[in-house]
């Protein structure tokens, strides 16, 4: 399949639905969405205004689906969308949009702008205008099995490592287990503590769980690049794995987009409802906590704050659980300004962190996080997304801020007593 402009325009025509038509007709150019976007607030450049990032999509809509637009097109009064234009828009649709959804949360006429960006990316990808960085990640996920090229032996090596260090067996392909635990490459390579943490938590809760040899990678770069066909291939592996092992619940790891891909887009990608539940690990921990299955001892005493991953709060509805979990193990937990529903993005979501040429802009946008951190001056930052974690670490290092970033699941697991194993 080669990507062409014609294909891109055809895809754009396909993705335009009543909500998008309604949104474009409602926009009054008030510019408030810019005030919600960290790429605008930190650069002051109006081209990063969220609704402007959709201009080519708006023109396709007008020219194809409105009477006046069709008339204008017929008499040659409107400009067709070109390859050069889409090329120019790549920076706006990918590098400077993390699909964080703050614009959708503030638009006074109610436009769900991030919904449109996600759809616009389908056309960008089909016309060959997606950034090389995300393209590479998608290709590796489809051909090798993970965006970072991680294969099963790497996972098995880590399983062995955890089994040796903690003396807890890691089940693989255990049919009939209650939970199937997914990982992200980032965790397999950079944060091996995650798997150990899950093992400790599951053992204490007395739950059966398993990894799956054919579906261990949860991230879905197909969603980020905007290619539903590839996203479907990736999500299908997980569905097949979960159905083969007959698990009740698939647990999305500490990764925002993996959760969105699996929890909200998955069933729509494969065209039928799932036969199992999908939960983010933080939701599962929240349930264990509520059911008294999660018992911790001791407290962190340094000043901690929590960075809400966009896909978990605004785009996912998991808002209260991390706070209750934080308070379970932290004596000095402070909230940043705008924390929770309106938290500011790390700047690297939606595939943006995979785009090399977007790094400078990303670090510029990070000034927003810097401001949030400077306000509460935490000793450490806790989060629940491996990608946020990496992006935060890079930003903090760039601005020479000595604030370690930790994962919430691991922090909880550290407070689970070893006895009673």
């Amino acid at each position: 399949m080669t990507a062409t402009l014609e294909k891109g325009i055809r895809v754009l025509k396909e993705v335009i639905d009543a909500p998008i038509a309604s949104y474009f007709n409602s926009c009054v150019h008030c510019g408030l969405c810019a005030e919600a976007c960290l790429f605008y607030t930190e650069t002051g450049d109006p081209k990063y205004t969220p609704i402007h990032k959709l201009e080519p999509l708006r023109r396709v809509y007008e020219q194809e689906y409105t009477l006046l637009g069709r008339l204008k097109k017929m008499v040659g009064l409107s400009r067709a969308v070109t390859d050069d234009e889409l090329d120019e828009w790549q920076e706006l649709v990918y590098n400077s949009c993390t699909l964080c959804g703050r614009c959708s949360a503030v638009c006074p006429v109610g436009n769900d702008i991030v919904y449109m960006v996600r759809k616009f990316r389908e056309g960008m990808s089909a016309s060959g205008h997606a950034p090389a960085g995300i393209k590479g990640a998608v290709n590796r996920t489809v051909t090798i099995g993970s965006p970072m090229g991680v294969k099963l032996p790497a996972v098995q090596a880590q399983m062995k490592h955890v089994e040796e260090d903690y003396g807890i067996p890691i089940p693989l392909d255990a049919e009939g287990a209650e939970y199937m635990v997914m990982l992200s490459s980032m965790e397999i390579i950079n944060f091996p503590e995650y798997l150990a943490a899950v093992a400790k938590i599951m053992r204490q809760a007395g739950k059966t769980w398993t990894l799956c040899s054919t579906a261990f990678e949860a991230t879905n770069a197909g969603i980020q690049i905007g290619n539903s066909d590839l996203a479907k291939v990736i999500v299908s592996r997980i569905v097949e794995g979960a159905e083969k092992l007959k698990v009740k619940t698939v647990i999305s790891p500490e990764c925002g987009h993996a959760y969105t891909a699996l929890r909200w887009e998955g069933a729509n990608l494969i065209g039928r409802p799932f036969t199992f539940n999908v939960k983010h690990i933080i939701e599962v921990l929240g349930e264990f906590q509520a059911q008294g299955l999660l018992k911790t001892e001791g407290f962190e005493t340094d000043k901690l704050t929590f960075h809400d991953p966009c896909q978990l709060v605004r785009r996912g509805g998991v808002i209260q659980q991390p706070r209750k979990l934080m308070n379970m193990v932290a004596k000095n937990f402070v909230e940043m300004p705008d924390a929770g529903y309106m938290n500011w993005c790390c700047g690297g979501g939606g595939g943006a962190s995979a785009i090399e040429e977007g790094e400078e802009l990303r670090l510029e946008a990070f000034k927003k996080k810097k401001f949030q951190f400077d306000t509460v001056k935490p000793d450490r930052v806790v989060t629940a997304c491996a990608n946020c974690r990496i992006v935060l670490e890079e930003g903090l290092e760039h601005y020479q801020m000595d604030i370690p970033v930790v994962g919430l699941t691991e922090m909880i697991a550290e407070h689970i007593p070893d006895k009673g194993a």
Partner: protein
Amino acid sequence: MNELQFLTWVRGPGLDLAVGIFLLGVVWRLFEIYSLGRKKDLSAPRHAAGASGLHTVFRRSVPPPGMLKRSPVSYIGGYIFHIGLAIVVLLFAPHILLIAHLTGLSWPGLPSQFIDLAAVVTMAAMVVMLVDRINKPVKRFLSTFEDWFTWAVTFLPVLTGWVAVQHLLLPYTTMLALHILSVEILLVVLPFTKLFHAFTLFGSRWYNGKVNAHKGVPV
């Protein structure tokens, strides 16, 4: 055509034509937009208090936390001129008479001195919004001909109405005819420009609320 003939035309055939285009335009545009439909969401829904299409229709009338401070002119100016327009259009006694004549519906109006004040405040807010659109980089960057044009066709009915009532500039008959003509232009333009947000805003807020309510997020 003398001024009386002009007034007779705008009150008769002109008004019929404008109202006709407006009504057909609104129906056509609503059909054109909402008949596109949308796909059913197959993911398992999550329920949360305060999350629904209807909640968002109302909630979005209030600035989200922190936003009022970031863009006070947009919010305060926006509130004033929208509410001002509603007062002037719906609570001025002669307007109510016209509406009663057209539809049979009637309600009490406000004293004309109050309407006077409301009109002046509305115009002032609209001028402030215009200056903001010129001054603010984002708004200027987003603005097209349509933004200036729709501002003008919204402003002119208020201005001409106020001038007519004050008996300024031109003879009352001519001014009144111009006022009615400006309203007719507004009616004709509304369905085909961004002014149509007066209708689609409800659908947009509802969709946004609905799509996110599916995830258990009250937006």
